[in-house]
Every structure is written in structure tokens, then in C-alpha cells.
């Protein structure tokens, strides 16, 4: 298609929007709101993934050593631990240090320790695994080292927390996909209105030899404008809402910080606008295709 034709047809697409502006406004508002919900989902997903990543990074393995090891033997175990490729860092924690830490955690209730005559805690290493490590596998490998009694990473809690995060992510993705289909349908129906308004013109276009792409193009532009502008407005709305929510959360639940707007914002909002535009184009394509086939 020549550039001149493309521009003319794009202009016709805009004119089509203007022609159906009254019915279109209601539909457009719905599109903006639905895209806002979609934007919130996107942001929520990004935060979930951030949370999961944070959790994974924070997982440390505790390697408890067998009783009665000499300092040399303990140091040797440490060396062996550090040679494993999945280990990023391993720090020795002596049994007395461990008891001190425990006492600090129980500050104010030291009487608990009066019941204990002897320090029951073993010497241990705190192991920081490399990102993406299979903790269960690493823990088994660590337990193979001579002098290691047990290696643990709070399996059950970590497993449950990650499962919860994954399920929430999957549910959000499913809801977002459902929403995307719904938005595409709304756009299909808006375009159907303009297709209907121009049905005579389309009939004549086909009779005088217009190609399908020539007939499609103004409607594709119209769908694109709807989706793009809707998503742009929705992005602005989500931006304001997120700013407000971040402030509220940093005040009331400071230990659960939301991602900063700069970290992923551009990506999330571009994704939202891109998705909006794509849904617009797909919706209008399906609408016109259905009409041309009929």
C-alpha cells in the first residue's frame, strides 16, 4: 500500500471513531477501566515476581556439624563446602556464637536459658547458595560431606511460600488473559458499529475491486487508536493509583515494600500500552473479517 493511501485510510479510521462517538464513548470508558484493571494485574505480577525473587535470594542453608570435631576438621568442612559450585558464600557460626544470637532473639526472657545447663547448639556454617540453585539438591550434597550432621533450609516454609506465590501468579495471569479476551470483544463490538455504519461503502469497495487489506486498514487503525489511547489513559490512572498505594504501604506496612516506580515502570506501562494497541488491532481485524465473510 502506498504511503498516501495509508495516511488517507488512517484518517478514515479516525473519522470512523468520530462517527460512532456516542456509543463509542461508553465502550471506550469500559475499555479504559478494564485496561486499568489489567495494568494493576501487571504491576501486581511484577511485585509478586519481585517478592518471589527476594525470597529465593534470602534462602540460606544451615549446615550443622557433628559434635566433637576439631577446629581443623571444622575448617576442612568449610573448605569442602566452599568448593561446591552452587555455594556463593559460607560463614562459620560457632556454637557459642549461635547461643549468643539465640539469646539476643529472646532478649528480656533470659530465664529460658537458666533451664539449660550446657549449650545445646551445634557448630554450623551458614551457606548462601548461588541464584537459581536447587536447594534440596545442594542440601543433600552438603550432607554427604564428612563431619556434616545435617543441612537444612526451612524446606516446608520456603516450599509453601513459593507455592503460594506461584499460585497467585498463575491466578493473576489467568485473570489477565480473561480480561484481555473481554477487552478484545468490547473493541470488536465498537468496530462492528462502524463497520455497520459503513457497510454500503464496504459492499461497493468490494464490487469495484478493493483488496481486503484496503478495506481492513481504516478499521485496524480505528481499533489501534481505541486500544492505544485507552491503554495510555489506563496507564496514567494506574500510575497515580500506584504512587498513592506505595505511599500508604510504606507508612503502614514498611516491611513489605512495593517495587519502586522507576525499576520496572516503563516496562510495565509499555507492556500495557502495547497490549492495549494489540487488542485493538486484533479485535477490529476479527470484526471486519467476520463481516467480510458474511
Amino acid at each position, binding site marked *: 500500500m502506498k504511503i498516501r493511501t495509508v495516511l488517507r485510510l488512517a484518517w478514515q479510521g479516525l473519522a470512523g471513531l468520530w462517527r460512532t462517538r456516542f456509543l463509542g464513548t461508553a465502550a471506550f470508558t469500559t475499555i479504559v477501566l478494564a485496561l486499568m484493571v489489567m495494568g494493576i494485574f501487571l504491576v501486581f505480577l511484577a511485585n509478586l515476581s519481585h517478592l518471589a525473587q527476594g525470597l529465593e535470594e534470602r534462602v540460606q542453608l544451615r549446615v550443622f556439624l557433628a559434635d566433637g570435631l576439631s577446629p581443623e576438621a571444622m575448617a576442612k568442612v568449610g573448605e569442602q563446602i566452599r568448593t561446591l559450585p552452587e555455594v556463593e558464600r559460607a560463614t562459620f557460626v560457632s556454637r557459642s556464637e549461635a547461643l549468643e544470637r539465640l539469646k539476643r532473639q529472646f532478649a528480656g526472657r533470659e530465664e529460658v536459658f537458666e533451664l539449660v545447663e550446657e549449650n545445646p547448639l551445634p557448630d554450623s556454617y551458614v551457606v548462601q547458595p548461588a541464584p537459581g540453585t536447587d536447594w534440596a539438591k545442594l542440601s543433600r550434597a552438603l550432607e554427604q560431606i564428612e563431619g556434616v550432621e545435617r543441612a537444612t533450609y526451612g524446606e516446608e516454609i520456603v516450599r509453601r511460600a513459593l507455592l503460594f506465590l506461584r499460585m497467585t501468579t498463575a491466578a493473576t495471569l489467568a485473570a489477565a488473559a480473561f480480561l484481555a479476551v473481554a477487552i478484545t470483544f468490547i473493541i470488536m463490538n465498537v468496530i462492528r458499529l462502524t463497520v455497520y455504519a459503513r457497510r454500503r461503502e464496504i459492499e461497493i469497495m468490494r464490487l*469495484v475491486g478493493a483488496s481486503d487489506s484496503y478495506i481492513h486498514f481504516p478499521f485496524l487503525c480505528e481499533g489501534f487508536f481505541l486500544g492505544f489511547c485507552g491503554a495510555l489513559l489506563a496507564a496514567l490512572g494506574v500510575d497515580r493509583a500506584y504512587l498513592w498505594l506505595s505511599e500508604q504501604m510504606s507508612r503502614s506496612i514498611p516491611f513489605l515494600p512495593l517495587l519502586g516506580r522507576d525499576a520496572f515502570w516503563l516496562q510495565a506501562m509499555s507492556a500495557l500500552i502495547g497490549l492495549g494497541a494489540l487488542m485493538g488491532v486484533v479485535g477490529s481485524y476479527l470484526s471486519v473479517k467476520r463481516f467480510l465473510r458474511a
Partner: protein
Amino acid sequence: MIQFHKVSKVYPNGALALLKVDLHIPPVDFVFLVGPSGAGKSTLMKLIIRQELPSEGQVVVNGKNVARLRKSEIPLLRRKVGVIFQDFKLLPDRTVWENVAFALEVAEVSPREIRKRVPAILQLVGLEHKASALPGELSGGEQQRVSLARAVVHNPLVLLADEPTGNLDPATSLEIMELLERINLRGTTVVMATHNREIVDRMKKRVVALEGGRVVRDEQKGRYGR
């Protein structure tokens, strides 16, 4: 130019429109299709511009089996075959000039070429003075002339006319027939479906009569009835 080889057409609802039609229309022929409503005249035309596909047999236009055309080739076929209708099918919100130019615009003809061709074709149909009028401001005959101008602005090989005089008075109908004859003399094959006995008898052209989807008569310099 146009060949039908044992063409049958049955619509999805089971209605039989054409049955084993054999027809050959050479270039620059002028053919009247006559017959009662539902005889298959319009279906025959729809098959020529591939608005419908035959259920059986072959329709060949300008050497090409239209059923085998790729999707992208259909618009090219339709630029070679102009069509006019009883109800004119004009765009009411566009001027005469714009209605005619529309056929060239969709074919992406350059604006310069459009500015050259539209006045020439309006002159051919005698409407150069009405170029900026809207269809609603024209008489039926004038509207049909606009429709005719739009159909032939591509210089088509074939012009299909589906009851073009159906909505016109006898005098205006004759004017349209004169135009069709002139277009035919310029080298365009004309196929016209009509119920207008007077015109068919007067023009003394080839007459193909259809009944129940079959060709029951095909005669040169024929008449409307036997």
C-alpha cells in the same frame, strides 16, 4: 471472454440457481439475459465476479478459472469487470465526482490520474456539469449514469448490468441503453439482465433466456419472448 462449462450452483439452503449451464460470450459481445425472477440471471453474474463460487463446473473469465483465483487476485478480476445495479449503489454522502473517483482510489490510482480520468468518464455519460452534486440531488437516470461511469472508469473488459433500467422510466431507460451501446462499441463486453421486453426487442442483440437455472434459449438478434 466469458465461458461457462457445465456450471451448476446450489445455495447452502438447497435452492438450485443454475443447472449445467454452458455459455460462451466472446469479446465485445452484447448479451441480454432474460427470464423470470429466480431463473438464475443474478447468480450467473455473481459467478462472473466471483461473488459466488460454482457448485459444479467452471467459470472462465478472460482465460482464468475464477474459482481458482487466489484471494489477492479477486480484486484484480473485479477491476476488469464493471457492475451496475438497479438500485445504483452510490454513496449518498459523496459527490458525483467522488463516487466515480472512489473506484480509482481503492485501486490506488494516483491523484493526478484520477483528476484526468474522472472528468473524461463524466463527459462520456454526460454528467460533467453535475460533478459536485450529491446523488440525492440527481434523477434516477442521472444516478444510473454515475453508477455506469464508476463501473467503466477502469476501462473494464466486461460490464455486467443487473436490471439497470428497473427503476427508470422508458425514456430514461433508452438513454441508459444508448450509453451501454456506446460503451460496447468502445470494446467492452456487455452482459445485461433485464425484464424490459421493449428494450430487448428494440436493441436486437444476442438473447440468452434462463428458466429454472437452465439456458432454454440462446439466439443472436433475439427477442424477449419466443
